[in-house]
């Protein structure tokens, strides 16, 4: 186990270096991400050149990257080139917002996917199974931005207007009402719609995985043996089938969650949540290289970390993998 972790950690360092350099090179060699473009329509003709000098944009790309790397290895990710704010604080703020969405989303998705997936497998070809199967296909096909806007329209705006409420029953701007904080009813009201939006596709796909894995387990020899021995069906499902069917789902979950740490751009954009996705998009649009690189580092670390967790979890859940 320790060897695995160490090996993964060592491999990730050159991977992250290559990833950050490639992204930096692409951003700097393309005019589309020019950080001085926003000044192009200024009446003062000197402002663009002054900005280029301030940011060192006329230096060779490897020199610019080296400047960033020299500070990054000491933990200093530098300052945003457009916002005059420390990249570290920007990442912390954005990461915390995205983390909240992911944690709640993953928890909700896991619980719902397991329940529906197991039910669909146990009650295969029942009306319930068909209904849930249809819903999962709709969920997989549904673009998050469509679902998000529909959810706002029908779960927040429509009730408020129809029932003459003072406020909508569910909120959809940010994670708190201004001035409020902490885990409270206001927070939950703000969380429901963005979590539903980001999980609509995830729940659908995890449900399919869980259903398939459960069906696979239910048809296995040891389950038939247990039933033949008179073990109650409920106990067979809960004690044997569910646990074993979790193995593939957990690995899929770990990988998916790792990818989510890169940001939930659409959800964040619609619900005005300043997370990693929006941070990256804004930085890309303004060519803010230090922020882009900081983002790549954080997202990359979490992808590697959660892939590692997936491998470890596989070993934890399946003794055969551990022994081998």
């Amino acid at each position, binding site marked *: 186990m320790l060897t695995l972790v160490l090996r993964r950690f060592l491999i990730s360092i050159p991977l992250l270096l290559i990833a950050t350099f490639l992204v930096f090179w692409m951003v700097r060699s393309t005019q589309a991400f020019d950080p001085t473009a926003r000044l192009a329509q200024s*009446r*003062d003709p*000197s402002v663009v050149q*002054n900005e280029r000098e301030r940011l060192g944009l006329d230096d060779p790309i490897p020199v610019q990257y080296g400047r960033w790397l020299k500070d990054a290895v000491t933990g200093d990710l530098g300052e945003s080139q457009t916002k*005059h704010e420390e990249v570290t604080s920007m990442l912390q703020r954005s990461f915390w917002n995205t983390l909240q969405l992911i944690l709640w989303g993953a928890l909700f998705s896991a619980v719902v996917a397991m329940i529906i997936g197991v039910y669909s497998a146990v009650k295969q070809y029942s009306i319930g199974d068909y209904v849930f199967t249809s819903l999962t296909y709709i969920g997989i096909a549904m673009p998050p931005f469509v679902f998000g806007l529909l959810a706002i329209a029908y779960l927040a705006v429509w009730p408020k207007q129809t029932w003459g409420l003072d406020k909508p029953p569910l909120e959809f701007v940010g994670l708190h009402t201004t001035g409020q904080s902490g885990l409270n009813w206001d927070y939950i009201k703000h969380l429901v719609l963005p979590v539903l939006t980001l999980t609509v596709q995830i729940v659908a796909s995890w449900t399919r995985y869980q259903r398939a894995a459960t069906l696979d387990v239910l048809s296995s020899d040891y389950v038939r043996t247990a039933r033949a021995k008179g073990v109650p069906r409920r106990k067979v499902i809960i004690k044997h089938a569910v646990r074993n069917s979790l193995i593939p789902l957990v690995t899929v979950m770990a990988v998916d969650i790792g990818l989510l740490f890169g940001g939930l751009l659409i959800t964040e954009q619609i619900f005005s949540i300043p997370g990693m996705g929006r941070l990256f998009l804004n930085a890309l649009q303004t060519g803010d290289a230090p922020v882009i690189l900081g983002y790549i580092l954080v997202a990359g670390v979490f992808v590697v970390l959660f892939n590692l967790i997936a491998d470890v979890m596989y070993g934890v859940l399946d003794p055969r993998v551990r022994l081998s």
Partner: protein
Amino acid sequence: MRRQRRSMQLLALILGLSIIAAACGGDDDDDSGSKGEETKTQTGGDLVIGAEQFPDCMDWIASCAGSSWGSWMVSYNTMPNSFDIVKDGDDWVYETSSMMAEDPEITTEGDKQVVTYVIDDKAVWSDKTPITCADYLYTWDQIKNGDDIYDKTGYQDIESVECPDGEDGKTAVTNYSKPYAGWQQLFGGQFGIFPSHLLKGKDRAAIMANGYDFSAGPWKLDGGASGWVKDTSITLVPNENYWGKKPTLDKVTFLLQADTAAEFEAFKAGTVKAIYPQPQLDAVEEISNGIPDTGKSINADHTPNAEALWMNNAKFPFDSKAVRQAFSYSLDRDAIVEALFGGLGVTKAMNSFNQTILGDFGDPDAFAGYTQDLDKVDELMEGDGWAKGSDGIWAKGGKKAEIVFKTTAGNARRERTQELILEQAKDAGFSLKIDNQAAGDLFGDQLPKGDYTLALYAQVLTSLDPSLSSLFVSTNIPTAENEFSGQNWTRTDIPDADEPLLAVDTESDRQDRSDAQAEADKLLAEDATSLPLDPLPNIFLWSTDIVGPEEGEDNPIFGPFHDMNEWALKA
């Protein structure tokens, strides 16, 4: 007799119903939001407004500032100005602000210009320190001599700022090295005036960039920098030491909402009580469909925006005046504007590059002659040696009139505009190929280097001073020699137009400036250097729970939030 009585009863009934109808009717047009009857208002209360963008920083003179939203929300509400921009009849004009004890005096002798400001005794910062000449001196010095300044235009022409009564005095004398017509936008405007007693000798950027706790306006950031929750909200509270009309509201919070669809939903849900959306297609559709209990101000007659079709006069086929003119005659610009903004009641194209907020400045109808006239197109093109091929597209010397048409990628309204133009141009024999670009690439590289044939984008004024000289004077053509630093991206080269365009920047009398601009406008139109298209309308929507905003009164330069100190909530 019985019939007569019945007739009288009927008449009485009709009269009675009429009286009742008159009493119950009246002005039920709640959507206007106009003051009509006196509405009962409450003292205090919190207001939440949707904002489409936040500034990158609040150091207003730095290159990271340059954000219209930052100015509208915070700068104009906290930083003092020498001049306000107010409505005078149908026009928007400069008016001496309440910070001044009297109108600034301007004298011009030969090449020298002197402007004297006398600050009112009651004008103070939020810590009760008087606003003095020292603040003018500091502001000028920072902008003229500072690094990383967004725009030094005008300030660079000031040789010195003198304080005849000492730096703590109330008189500031600014000495220009040459006449500068736009002097009223200095010491105010987007930048404001800075408090020397708090910033002199310190790192101004570090103190201001992430929010500041001082103010000389009716509002201040709630708790200074903590009033700006990055990427989330900006909260203003009343400045209790403001010398003018203090706000009635307790607090105003701007919530960032980058998605237009979600912004409208938030407005309909009452989560935000006012929005100032871009005139994108989905916004136009929402407004056309109607939103209950909403006041609205849709302003195309006085906007600081001018969207136009910019032709590269140095690139084939627009290197020919005849082709530029022919292309201008190929389009029905009114129909295009109506298709885009008809839902807002905006149906007429612009006929000048001068933004409509400038009113009658220059010649607002200079380009009015360019209406769709396909016979004229044929006449001009054939006269220039072109002939239509079998595909109906003009060709000359083996080269077709194929035009690469660029605009900012991802802008739905501009993409729709391109579609409309493509159809009309094709009917006239021009083949347009759309090649949209990221804004950074377009403005940062392609336009300055002339790597385009036709482009669609807007010029936006941030003051009441026209700025066409930078766009059309031949010495501003970007070249490799000047490192592509000029703003004459169309490569307009009309020597006779240079002098009147430059006169607009130097003449002190507004009528003289207008006459010079009119002369230049005529030459630009004759040359068809480019083609004005539409005034992007300003759209301001507010809940009828707010008393204060009025239809057509949103300040095109200062934004719709500049008079929030006069707003109140309905009781």
